[in-house]
């Protein structure tokens, strides 16, 4: 029998799968639908981001989940960053730049908490890439994964959870003017929308 035909509304309680309802008047078991694990892939093809000199950090919205509580199961990324602005006068050559994916846009020159809660995970070591040493030439491709022991659930019941790609130049002396970098690669996120109210 297809699962979609289960509906115990108005019927006697009966066991369903591994769950047995209490035999109690006013307590009714219903099938609420299948919770599916989804895997999304966002591909970047020379997507441009401006790191302003005044902030030394940058964000770009790359998508938004449907409303609901989002349980992140895992995420992986592989990215190559290319400085397309003059290196001597913008983002300096061969400097470390933090990157991560989060439900909030970057707001500091050190990425943390909700700026990285989708990858690598809040509280985890923030990955970095080395900036281009030659204009329009990509630096080495970097890879990173969602790393955390605790399952992350993001509360998107009131406002759907966005995903931002965040960058930050942690050392202020490493940027001299508004810099443009392009990003090529992908982000894959495996997640379950556990419900909305």
């Amino acid at each position, binding site marked *: 029998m297809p699962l979609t035909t289960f509906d115990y509304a108005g019927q006697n309680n009966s066991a369903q799968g591994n769950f047995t309802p209490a035999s109690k008047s006013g307590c009714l078991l219903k099938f609420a639908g299948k919770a599916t694990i989804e895997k999304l892939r966002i591909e970047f093809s020379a997507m441009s*981001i*401006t790191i*302003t*000199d*005044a*902030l*030394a*950090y*940058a*964000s*770009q*919205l790359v998508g938004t989940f449907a409303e609901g509580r989002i349980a992140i199961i895992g995420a992986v990324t592989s990215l190559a960053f290319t400085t397309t602005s003059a290196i*001597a*006068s913008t983002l*300096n050559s061969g400097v470390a730049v933090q990157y991560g994916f989060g439900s909030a*846009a*970057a*707001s500091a020159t050190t990425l943390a908490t909700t700026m990285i809660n989708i990858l690598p995970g809040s509280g985890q070591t923030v990955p970095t890439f080395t900036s281009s040493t030659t204009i329009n030439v990509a630096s080495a491709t970097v890879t990173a994964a969602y790393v955390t022991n605790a399952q992350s659930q993001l509360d998107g019941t009131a406002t759907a959870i966005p995903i*931002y790609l965040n960058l930050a130049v942690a050392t*202020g*002396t*490493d940027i*001299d003017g508004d810099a443009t970098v392009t990003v090529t690669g992908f982000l894959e996120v495996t997640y379950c929308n556990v419900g909305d109210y």
Partner: protein
Amino acid sequence: MQQTHRDRLAAIKATAEIEVSGVTSKVVNGAVVPEGKPSYAVKIKNEAGEVVASASSEKKADAYESAIAKAEKKLAKAEK
């Protein structure tokens, strides 16, 4: 920091730190943009980590230039 400033700091065995104030950020069309007028404060530290000069300006390059020039003078005097 521009390479010429890095070279001058290396010559006097000093390092620079910069702080930005007067600017906040907001998200516009999915990207963060600055709000306000930034001011840059540069501190120059000697090998011992002591601040030997500082300067601030609304232009980052000017703040570096002024602070480094002060540090060069001070450290040159100290050598005499």
